[in-house]
């Protein structure tokens, strides 16, 4: 067993111990691996099943049942992409997610900087106000927010609805307002851990507050910002509720909430449903596999998020 410990890649064991705690019995290890392997396969199964189903023709599965082998095709993806107009909805998601994530990180880092840089009594209230806002159930704010959104006018060049309701702007703002809290919490903790001499030195150099924020603090926060950006892209892309209730025009829905329309169109064809699901999952899966470390770090940095 100790041999396997030695051959492990060193990167994955941050707390390498000089000697094994206790030489585990080999059968116990086998049972452990069997158990974890079974759980892992069980956990992956629904996703793999969706991929598998999406690659088979409806005619074949209708004739032979789903527990069969064959009927491989790529047509479901083509049909799903065209019927549900995924191109358009993906673009809508980009229009909403990119500005919302950038704005969230910018605004949250501003507040976090002030909270971490100064020791005012109000800071704790500020931090509480932001963090708690992130945890409130969205539905409990829906009624007034819905009314506000249908009352606030926007010029026509910003939204053809001429209202905050049914516009990308409204959706971006509401996502920013909700996600700011989590980022303020994580970033202020991160910034508080930075050495304070930095600011003393910056002040001696006569750096303004803005320069201290933008040129001293922000570059040092890159790891935290990267982790949060990964997480926020996933969350805002996955956001379903606000887009469902604050949008009306079918063409403007981001891809996650357009899923609901897809249901009606594809209802009788599970192979199409699975192709659509896989298409919608691809961006988050790509992020997950490319930026897994950032994703996990972001989640555990805050050790929170409802």
């Amino acid at each position, binding site marked *: 067993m100790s041999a*396997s410990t030695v051959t*492990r890649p060193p990167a994955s064991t941050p*707390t390498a111990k000089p000697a094994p*705690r206790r030489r585990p019995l080999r059968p116990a*290890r086998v049972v*452990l691996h069997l158990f*974890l392997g079974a*759980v*892992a*396969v069980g*956990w992956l199964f*629904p*996703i793999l099943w*969706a991929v598998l189903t999406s690659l088979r023709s409806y005619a074949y599965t209708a004739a032979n049942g*789903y*527990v069969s082998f064959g009927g491989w095709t790529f047509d479901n993806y083509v049909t799903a992409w065209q019927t549900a107009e995924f191109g358009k909805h993906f673009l809508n998601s980009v229009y909403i997610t990119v500005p919302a994530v950038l704005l969230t990180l910018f*605004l949250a880092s501003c*507040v976090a900087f002030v909270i971490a840089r*100064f*020791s*005012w009594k109000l800071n704790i209230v500020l931090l509480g*106000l932001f963090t*708690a*806002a992130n*945890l*409130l*159930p969205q*539905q*409990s*704010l829906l*009624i*007034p927010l819905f*009314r506000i959104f249908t009352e606030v006018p926007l010029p026509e060049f910003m939204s053809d609805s001429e209202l905050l309701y049914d516009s990308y702007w409204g959706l971006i*703002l*509401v996502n920013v*307002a*909700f996600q*700011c809290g989590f980022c303020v*919490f994580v970033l202020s903790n991160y910034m*508080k*851990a930075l050495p304070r001499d930095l600011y*003393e030195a910056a002040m001696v150099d006569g750096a*303004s507050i*803005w320069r201290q924020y933008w040129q001293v603090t922000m570059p040092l926060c890159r790891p935290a910002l990267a982790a949060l950006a990964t997480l926020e892209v996933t969350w805002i*892309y*996955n*956001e*379903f*509720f606000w887009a469902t*209730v604050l949008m009306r025009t079918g063409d403007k829905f981001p891809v*996650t909430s357009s*899923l*609901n329309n897809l*249901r009606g169109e594809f209802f009788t064809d*599970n192979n199409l*449903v699975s192709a659509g*699901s896989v298409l919608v999952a691809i961006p988050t899966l790509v992020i*997950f596999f490319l930026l897994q470390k950032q994703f*996990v770090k972001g989640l555990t940095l805050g*050790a929170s998020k409802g």
Partner: protein
Amino acid sequence: MSDLPLIQADHAVSSPATTTTSPGGRGRRLRLLSRTDRVVITLMVLVPLLLVVALVWLPALATVALSGTDWDGIGPLSEIDWVGGRNYSDVVNIYPPFVPAMQNNLLWLAALFVVATPFGMFLAVLLDKEIRGSRFYQTALYLPVVLSLALIGFVWQLIYSRDQGLLNAVLGGQTDWYGDPNVNIWAVLVAAGWRHVGYIMLLYLAGLKGVDPSLREAASVDGASETSTFFRVIFPVLRPINIIVLVVTVIESLRAFDLVWVINKGRNGLELISALVTQNVVGEASRIGFGSALATIMLAVSLVFITIYLAVVMRENRR
């Protein structure tokens, strides 16, 4: 640790004699700020604060206020009449979906708390051992965490669907797992738990990595078994994580929405408070006061747990 100088700085304001040792005092610092700096600081706080107050806290207060009125959501605000607690008594007494919704929310909480959370913790403990392939197991387990709950509803439809689902194909039954009000909440809970386990596993794994290894060594020198080491030594040390997980679980079960909404908009066995609120606003009947009363109940429950959460994380921060 980094907070210590801040505390000293606060004292420095009251006793100027010590300012020499801590030059970063609050009073001095304010005086050192130029007018531009003060404007910049104000803007840095005020703009995000206004956004959050306007789009989160004011609506929250308005929800509470509206829950005591009979507003229909369309008429001018001047026509609003105060009705006191009538909406609340109506919700409890003459609104049939309310009781099932409460039951389902509690069931949701119980399922996540009694089954999914301990299982996630158990897996974290197993994965914390030095085993080969740990990364693969971890990845498989938290893969569902990156998927939206709406999407998860569709992914599981492939298993649950009556005519085309895998479950019926294997079992040979004719159950409509999403449609039959006797079973659908359980089917949905399996899907919700599937995602929750990975998330909890991740939180505990991070917590376990932070546990001082000497604690474990000391326990094993004392001859404690692995199980008793965990429950007597490790678990108590994880207290902050335990509380965060508790709060996350409660809030998650209260906010549960996407999954039932994509299945059938929260009807027919899948009632949830969040879905009822939404139905009352964007649904066919817009009953504002009534929906607000439901929303206020959600708000009240969540605020209790948010307060606990804040108390814990703020205390952790001060360490």
